[in-house]
């Protein structure tokens, strides 16, 4: 089966690539576009390690076909920082030691970005339910939730 030409915008830049009809957006990001910051933990939408933002919506990229990305705006972990300036969410994850192995971290940061873009002042419960689709096995979530709270406060102040 021949590949399909896809035109899309990734992290603000126009992007073209070829994808097999059955290929996931996750595989296209990782294998074709070499954007390996987005991780695969399950391939079934249960762990959130592959979280990206598509047109403002938080999405598991393993559940989206690469060809469906055509014409949409996609943000991955590689597009969260501005050049060499970290996003406040990234900064607060570091300061709070909100990562141990770091494998789930890109998914959590992208998911947090989607949350704070929508709701700049979430309660602890809102944070916990928003992030319930992102699995972390190392931290017990305590420091992640605190990092999100800190980032939200900083972004509101700034």
């Amino acid at each position, binding site marked *: 089966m021949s590949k399909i030409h896809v035109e899309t915008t990734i992290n603000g830049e126009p992007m073209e690539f070829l994808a097999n009809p059955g290929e996931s957006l996750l595989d296209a990001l990782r294998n074709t576009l070499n954007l390996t910051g987005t991780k695969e933990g399950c391939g079934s939408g249960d762990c959130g390690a592959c979280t990206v933002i598509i047109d403002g919506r938080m999405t598991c990229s393993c559940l989206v076909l690469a060809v469906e990305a055509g014409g949409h705006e996609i943000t991955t972990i590689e597009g969260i920082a501005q050049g060499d300036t970290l996003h406040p969410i990234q900064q607060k994850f570091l300061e709070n030691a909100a990562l141990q192995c770091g494998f789930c971290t890109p998914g959590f940061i992208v998911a947090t970005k989607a949350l704070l873009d929508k709701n700049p002042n979430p309660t602890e419960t809102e944070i916990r339910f928003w992030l319930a689709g992102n*699995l972390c096995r190392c931290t017990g979530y305590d420091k992640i939730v605190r990092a999100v709270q800190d980032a939200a406060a900083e972004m509101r102040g700034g």
Partner: protein
Amino acid sequence: MTFIGNKSDLRVVGTRPVRPDGVDKVTGRAVYGADATMPGQIIGKVLRSPHPHARIISIDTSKAEKLPGVKGVITSADIPNIPSEEAFVGEGPMNFRDLSLNCMARDKVLYEGHVVAAVAAINDAVADAALKLIDVKYEVLPHVIDVEEAMAPGAPILHDTLFTAGVTPKPTTPSNVAKQVRFTIGDVEAGFKQADVIVEQTYTTAPVHQAYIEPHACVAAIAADGQVLITASSQGHFMIRAYTAKLLGIDIANIRVTNAEIGGGFGGKTVVYLEPLAVALSKKSGRPVKMTMTREDVFRGTGPTSGGTIWVKVGATKDGKITAAQTVIKLQAGAFPGSPINPALMCAFAMYDLANVDTLGYDVVSNRPKVAAYRAPGAPISSFAAESAIDDLARKLGMDPIELRLKNAAKQGSKTVYGVTHGVIGYEEVLNAAKAHPHWTAPLGKNQGRGLATGFWFNIGGESTGGVFINEDGTASVVTGSPDIGGSRASMAMMAAEVLGIPYEKVRAVIPDTASIGFTHVTGGSRVTYATGMAVTQAAQAVVEDLKKRAAMIWDISPEAVEWKDGEAVPAGANAGGFDPLPLAAIALKAAKTGGPIGSEISVNAQGAGPGFGAHICDVEVDPETGHTTILRYTAVQDVGRAIHPAYVEGQIQGGAVQGIGWALNEEYIYNKKGHMDNAGFLDYRIPVASDLPMIEAVLVEVPNTRHPFGVRGVGEVPIVPPMAAVRNAIRGALDLELFHLPMSPPRVRAAVDAAKAPKAAE
């Protein structure tokens, strides 16, 4: 060894700086196992057995080999048939033949998911198609999953060559019981005779998976001259090198392993599954081969830890002095021997100062994946039962559970069941901190309960290499052989910065490949900050001695007349001369003139890792209608010796506690009648998510380990030991329910609610 852990003198140790690898990990730049590539790589995939127990009659790979794009197919015929060889390789006793057979089945498959063949192809789709073309003929055999059934007479026997060790006379018929072990002190029968109150109960726990979020992955290549390159994510790249060499018969010097960043392990990445296959496929295909597990592969083919049956009996006098404790534990090892039965027995009552203890255990094989290490292997299983029993004993005695534990607490000089006399330990300090914590006396509402449980883990030391090198500008590079699984680069850099007296930001820590640093045992056993930290500290101390000599040379005075203070050489006193301090950078600048590059690499085999103790307090609310348990509040107190980076120490405790909460409430391998695992995915194997939990408060008690220069005790394993009993005791407190089986899932709790009501209805 000088103890430099006096808290008031420390500038860097005890602070919370950003980890050296942090930015890479929050921006997606960090390279994990599945992110690594080699030029010209192709894809390797495995074929797994659909049967839990079967004889392999034949494997026909000819159709798969002919498929365009397939570059190689391997079966056990392509893997050396190595003899049985027992060795203790660090994470436990290991039989290399079993390890080989676990990577690739030879005559029999022993569990659903056991690998029988592997292919290398130009892409995923071709590899998948090739797997479907491999024709395996099986003679299906009866299987056994449950531990008690596997021990029963007439059970299907997994290994004709397995005879129960540890019984006399030596058995003449094969058995699924690989080993019987016993540890005893005193006389339990006499002890029980002195008891006024006795509790006795059988508990069960389910096998649970380490459930790291990163599936196993590697890329490997073997060249025409036999040299092998592997990049893999694991808890030890030296382990990958050693096991791959052993299983394939390759000289260790011909294998170089680079550690990718590791996305969690918890003990589960201390063995090989893919790497020997990737090398064998590379040999067959002449190309680098990349292999990545799916989540389903991870559940069916790797880990988990044992489930087991634990019978416990504890007796005490009316005033709460425990007179005897006894346990019989049967642990599932999976398809090959090797459950953590020894530590399960040794840890069950290690928190207590007891005269009469008897522990008997069985290591039992059945048709499940071979167990791998999981955080404090064995201890959570036996402690769940023991700490539930101690709680029930406190209820029967009408005593506060902390008071009962304090009354019987192990302290310096207490003898354990395995014979060792405890040294300086912090169990009483931990109990007192729990007692003093506001959580212990906070009010509770309706359907709410509070539970407490404690736990013990030995911690280990072992072989580590650490180097400290002073760069030309006075900054420092720290190298170690320990993969960084939870922030250890930071603690290594901090210890070096502390000794050198320079800011943390001037020290960078990296983990080079196996050819570029001395041997270092796996990141596990709570050993890295202790043992590798010891190597790094000693290397930094050697560098300081050298720096003092260099300064003496520059000043042209005797080295004894130089002291090292806050990152500078200073004259030792007025007699030494009136020199201005020489900062490290100034000495580094003159390194060529004073003898060349400045640096030291130290290898140690660290002994005497201090044991750790923890006490967890858990509040729950139980919904009697649905049986659902909500964790309302959780406090985990632990003796950490000395916290180098307190935030990452807290993280270990919080993460361990939450894994234990998952073990307590949700997690289990569910098998159907065919011996197939029914829940091999994160949807049905449910680990805790953010919305299940409150904040987890970690309370650090510091009783320094005098065997470590900064007082470090391992911290990573203790926190998974108490949670199951803490949650169970809390549920018991909430609704007075009799719960003895894990997980305490809603149906189980609901059934206990109904059972509790039943006798009342009959009255």
